[in-house]
């Protein structure tokens, strides 16, 4: 097989799967109007698939902070912090992230994906064990592979299976890193974190929680699932991203283990990657202030999530098991998913189309994500368009 033949095989699969002129995986927005509306193919669409949970991408305070820093410090850092040095903004953001979580240590990375690569592959190594939830994000799977540790998967959110696997490890459980997420990205379901933390305490080991989809969303202060479940003291490492609730790009890890600071000397995805640009860091720092100062955004987000989840449920759609800002609509087949996705877009709503293996358990999904910036009218419009397309989905079923 030639080097490029495997890519041609992808092209053939893509052609078989997607009708001509439809590519849900390569959507181009011509113009962004607000954090909830854009132009796509000359049509104005409501954005209901962007993980922009608090709607901060167009927050005037964040934009102004980024603009002022852009003018003052330039467009980029042109290299890694190890080689090119740390800007004051990087240092200050790490201090502020640690304060936000009430932790002693924080490290900032360039994206959420490389945060997981850097932290997990550095914490665990050959001879260690990682026990991870089956529905973990691709970055977690890749990080585990990179670590060289033994990888053990437990069934999604299944405490019995997790306990069985920890039990079988015997004394090795103490050298085990358990990895779960706060809210899972595809179905929007929540980890039973209090019970998972109890199992970690019972069998030993270390617990890392990815709060990518729960930071800014859950908890009285918006710190995520660990805060909401009241188990922050039992979590060893929290990782997350700046690209969802904080409306920017980048990632972080916080911990009360002072050894976290040493990760920055070892982690290849920290040492060998360009650090976040000054403007990016400035917008994140400002967004963190907004999260602290405006808890009403979180309340608004949950009102919108409830409106959409209940509205689609009342229409008869099969949804993810938990109410959350991720509202996953289960479709009967790939063909129907594509048809529904295209119809939604033609009628003015953009959602995510998800096929397996990105979606768990062989499901095909229309994945909606709600924002605090959506208006009740926009949510009602989304529900209305889902109602319009229902006959197309149920036809022949």
């Amino acid at each position, binding site marked *: 097989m030639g080097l490029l033949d495997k890519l041609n095989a992808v092209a053939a699969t893509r052609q078989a799967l997607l009708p001509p002129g439809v590519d849900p995986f390569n959507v181009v927005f011509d113009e962004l109007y607000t954090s909830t509306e854009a132009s796509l193919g000359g049509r104005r669409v409501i954005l209901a698939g962007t993980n922009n949970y608090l709607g901060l991408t167009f927050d005037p305070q964040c934009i102004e902070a980024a603009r002022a820093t852009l003018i003052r410090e330039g467009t980029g850092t042109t290299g890694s912090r190890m080689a090119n040095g740390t800007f004051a903004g990087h240092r200050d953001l790490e201090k502020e992230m640690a304060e936000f979580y009430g932790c002693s240590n924080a490290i900032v990375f360039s994206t959420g994906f490389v945060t997981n690569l850097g932290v997990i592959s550095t914490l665990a190594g050959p001879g260690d064990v990682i026990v991870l939830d089956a529905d973990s994000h691709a970055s977690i799977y890749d990080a585990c592979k990179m670590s060289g540790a033994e990888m053990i998967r437990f069934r999604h959110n299944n405490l019995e299976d997790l306990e069985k696997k920890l039990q079988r*490890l015997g004394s090795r459980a103490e050298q085990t890193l358990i990895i779960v997420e706060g809210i899972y990205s595809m179905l929007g379901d929540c980890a039973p974190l209090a019970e998972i933390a109890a199992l970690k305490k019972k069998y030993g080991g270390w617990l890392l929680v990815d709060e990518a989809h729960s930071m800014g969303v859950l908890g009285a202060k918006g710190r995520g699932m660990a805060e909401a479940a009241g188990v922050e003291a039992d979590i060893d490492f929290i990782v997350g991203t700046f690209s969802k609730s904080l409306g920017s790009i980048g990632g972080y890890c916080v911990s009360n283990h002072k050894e976290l600071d040493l990760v920055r000397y070892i982690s290849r995805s920290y040492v060998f990657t360009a650090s976040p640009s000054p403007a990016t860091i400035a917008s994140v720092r400002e967004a963190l202030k907004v999260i602290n100062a405006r808890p009403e955004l979180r309340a608004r987000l949950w009102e919108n999530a409830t409106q959409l989840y209940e509205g689609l449920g009342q229409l008869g759609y099969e949804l993810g098991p938990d109410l959350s800002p991720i509202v996953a609509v289960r479709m009967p087949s790939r063909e129907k998913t594509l048809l529904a996705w295209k119809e939604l877009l033609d009628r003015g709503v953009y959602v995510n189309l998800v096929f397996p293996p990105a979606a768990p358990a062989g499901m095909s999904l229309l994945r909606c994500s709600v924002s605090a910036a959506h208006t009740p009218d926009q949510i009602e419009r989304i529900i209305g368009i889902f109602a319009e397309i229902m006959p197309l989905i149920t036809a022949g079923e």
Partner: protein
Amino acid sequence: MTNAQYADILQKVASLLQAHAPRPVPIHEDTELINDLGFDSLRVMEMMNDVEDAFDITYPLNALSDLKTVRDFVLQIQDIIRNS
């Protein structure tokens, strides 16, 4: 591990593979999980859950990279049982 135990594992594995395989072809020791039975990553994971339950073992994901034929699979399971 005796031949009899190997045969028992093989029989159980074959039955589990039959239940999950997209292509219902006859299964023997040289049958390949991907090329012959048409397993993809998702089906492998679903099948692994049943294998773990059937043998009361934990199958590490790292072992998947060495898994090609039914024989490989049976030998891996034998090994995990022996070391558990």
